[in-house]
Every structure is written in structure tokens, then in C-alpha cells.
């Protein structure tokens, strides 16, 4: 009996640990903790990162920050968000830039810089791994890995 109980305990703790290990590699969208946004839908995230709108639903002006192509999180983010390859994202932005509509968001090279940007801009919004999101930012959207 105690052996069985022990096995059950092991199984439960393994089940509990399992998603946590996956969650660690998960990308999340974070905003400045003071911008008044608690959660976002996928469409709202897409609208901001693609420059279709420049404000959160509460009217606060959004200041999105992207990552450089060289950082693997960028490809992971757009793949998880829309199933899009970086070439398609870059094609989209080349249309916006060369038609004279708008410039893409600033691109940074590391998650630390992204967090710094989000913290230092009232409407800052970026993406990092969940494990890197600290108390200075708020997680508003989680991407399935």
C-alpha cells in the first residue's frame, strides 16, 4: 500500500512538474505593469505588433518592441502567433515601409533589452520567455509553444 501511494505521489508530482517544464520555454507577451492592461486576445496582440493600431483597448498609446532576426525568439514568436515565417513578416513590413505607410517597431537583440524597453516606456509591449518575465512587467498573453 505505501509503495502504491508513493508511486501515485510520484506520478502526481511528475504530472505537476511536466507542464511547468514546458511552460518554462513558453513565450509570453508582456506590457508595462502600469499601462492598465491585464489581458489581451491574440487578435489584439497581432493588431499591435503589425502596426494596424497604435493603441491598447483602453486608449493608452502602445509602444511595441520587436527582436532582431538573429534572435531565435523572433521566429518562435511569429510562428506561434500566426504560423508565419520570418520571411513573410519581413515581406509585410517591406510593403508598409516602401509604400510610405509606416516604419516597423524598434528591434532589440536580447530579452533583457526588451524588458528594459517595456519597463521604461509607459505603453511598452514586447515578448520574452515566461521565465524572464519579472514583477516589473505584466504577462497579458501566453503563446502555446
Amino acid at each position, binding site marked *: 500500500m505505501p509503495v502504491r501511494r508513493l508511486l501515485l505521489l510520484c506520478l502526481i508530482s511528475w504530472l505537476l512538474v511536466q507542464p511547468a517544464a514546458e511552460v518554462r520555454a513558453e513565450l509570453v507577451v508582456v506590457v508595462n505593469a502600469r499601462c492598465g492592461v491585464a489581458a489581451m*486576445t491574440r*487578435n*489584439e496582440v*497581432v*493588431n499591435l505588433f503589425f502596426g*494596424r*493600431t*497604435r*493603441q491598447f*483597448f483602453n486608449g493608452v*498609446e*502602445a*509602444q511595441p518592441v520587436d527582436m532582431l*532576426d538573429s534572435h531565435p525568439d523572433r521566429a518562435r514568436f511569429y510562428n506561434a502567433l*500566426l*504560423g*508565419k*515565417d*520570418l*520571411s*513573410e513578416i*519581413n*515581406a*509585410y513590413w*517591406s*510593403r508598409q*515601409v*516602401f*509604400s*510610405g505607410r*509606416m*516604419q516597423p517597431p*524598434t528591434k532589440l537583440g536580447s530579452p533583457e533589452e526588451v524588458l528594459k524597453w517595456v519597463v521604461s*516606456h509607459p505603453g511598452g509591449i514586447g515578448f520574452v520567455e515566461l521565465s524572464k518575465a519579472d514583477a516589473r512587467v505584466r504577462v497579458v498573453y501566453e503563446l502555446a509553444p
Partner: protein
Amino acid sequence: MLVAKMLRLTDALRLLKLLAVSCAFAQLIGTPVLADQEQTFSLQGFGTLGMARTTSNDLEFVRDLSQPGGIKKNWDGRGDSVLGLQGGWHINKEFEAVVQATTRYRYDRTYHPEISWAFVKYDPTPNLTLRAGRLGTEFFMMADSRWVGYSFLTVRPPGDYFWYLPFYSIHGLDAAYTVPLGEHLLRIKAFYGHSDGKIPLADRQWEIKDSPMLGGFLEYQIASWLIRASYANITFKNNLPLGTLLPASSLEYLATKDRRTDYYSLGVVYDQGPWQVQLMLNHIEQGNNALEDSNGGYLLAGYRIAQVTPYLGYSWVRSERHASPDPYASRVIADSHSDQKTSIVGMRWDVARNVAVKAQWDGVRGDPTSIFPYRNDPVNGRWSGKMDIYSLTVDFVF
């Protein structure tokens, strides 16, 4: 003939030289970094090196009516090759100045660089954007990015839809306003200005400079769907360059001066995951007797597999005949007739970061009377209305 080939070669070399110089420049200045609250400068560019050939020597295939000559049975780089450079001055959060220059085969058979845009952009609120200066016109969806090959799937925007549109820029202003409706977005844009440019017709040029243009659209974004309805018009400043060979009564009948042409269009785009699907429809109503009203459209679908995106498309254009008892006028009107369908099969291969290679086949199946979309209009009805076009391009941005 040899001289013509040599000229073509020197033009290509000039283009390459300009490209090399601009790449060096871009490297020198570095990639644009828009630091917040600070003035920054950026330099970016795009280009295409393309080659195409057709299966007919009876007439010349052009990308749109801004080109005076086109492609026949020999491989030819004039149609699709282009180089563009954009300099941006980000003044502060609200103001930005942009100048863009392009070089491509243009109305006077040269590659003289042109300033395509030069404007100041002002964003007074996050919802509102105002621009003034020399602006691209969005007559139809994507009309203002027609030369940025890297930004779209096909080798060139489907011709049956865009041939009629040799208008590229206006001197004027535009305003765009975005209304968030829950997760969806409604975008409204309006523009007004005076057109800039010339349209080559036979060995003459039709001056459309200073012709007033007015237009706008309503656009609705629902998740991965984008739907747009647009209207635009142009009131021609000048008559067609028909010379003095026609009787005065015919010239008067064919007058375009101060006549307004209306452009209506509807576009639906679906863009999610590996899929890209576009449906576009247009209707053009000519306010003059010289050109025929027309309906055109295209359906295009692509599916990405890793770095390769095969695509299939179908486009069509058909103008409505109108007869004139005047034989002179009838001949001129017949020059603006179109009645054809095109099948498109191709693939885009994203070989490296910011570089795409494309190969495409276009099968034009039309009536022998369909001659408006081409150059060097055939005499004696040698044109069968059927032609295949093979194209290869390398598109890049930097």
C-alpha cells in the same frame, strides 16, 4: 539591333552600379535604429533583378501602361527590374519625413531615377495619420507597393488588374483614421492631389501631370481577413496625344480633357499560417469616348511549405465595346479594347534573409482584339490573343 542590345546592357550595368553604391551607403549608415524621443535617420532599399520572355513577337508585353516598350521572345530584363532607396528622418514621435527614389524602365525609355515619394507624415493621435507632399496613390489595394517585389507573392502584380493603372503619385495630401471596434479595426483613408507623370502612347506621351485625383477607401480587418472597398477618380488635364491627322470632329468626340474617369474596387485578403489568398475586383468607368469601360479581377492563392511557396492565380479583364459611326474614332477606341484571361502558376523561394527568388508562368488566353494591355499594336491581325510569359526574378530588401 546590336546597338539596342548594347544600350540595354549599359542600362543594366548602370543599375548594378547604383545598387553596389547604395549597398555600400546602407552599410556605412547602418541599420535603422529608431531610438525613442530622438531624431534618427534611416536608409533602406528594395530591388528586383528580373528576366522575362514571351512566346510572341507580334506585340510587346509590358508590366503596366507606364512602359513604352516591352518584352518579346528574347529574354529581357527591362520589364521587372527596379531599384528603390528610401531615406527617412524620424523627427519626433509625431513627425517624420520620407524621400524615396526609384529607377526602372520608364515612359521615355530610360532608367532616369525618379523621386517617387517625398512627404512629411504627422500623427497627431495614435488613430490619425496625415501626410502631405508627393504621395503614392492607393487607387487599388497594394497599388502603392507595386514595385516592391519582395513584399508580394507573385513576380509582378497580376497585369489584368493593374495594366490600366499607370498613375503612381500625386502632389497632395491624405488622411487615414483607424477606428477600433472590439478586436476588429475599421480604417478610413482619403486622398486628394494633382497627379504627376506621363503615359507613353505609341511614339508620343500623354501628359497627365496636374490632373486632379480624388479617392478613398473603407477597410475592415477581422482577425486574418482584410476587406476593402475603394473609389477613386481622375479628371484628365489633357487630350490624348492623337496628333493632327484626325478630323476635328473626331478629335472632339475623343476628347479626354476635363473628363472624369471613375475607379471602383473591392479587395478581400486572407492571410494566416501557410495560406495567402487574395480576391480583387475592379470596375472602371471612363468619362470620355476614347477609352472603353472595363471590368477586371484576380484570384490568387499560395501555400507555404518551409521556405517555398507555390501559388496559383487566375486573372481577367474585359472592356465594353462602344461603337462610333466615325471610322477614325472607331479605330482609336479599338486600341483601348481588352478581352482576356490569364492563368498564373509560380513559386516563391525565400532563399536567404530578405532575398526571394521567383519563377512564374503566365498563360494569356484572349481575343485577337485584346490589344490595350500591350505595346507595338500589331497590324493586319497577326496577334492571336494567346501568349505565354516566362519570368524569373530575384527580389531583395536591405
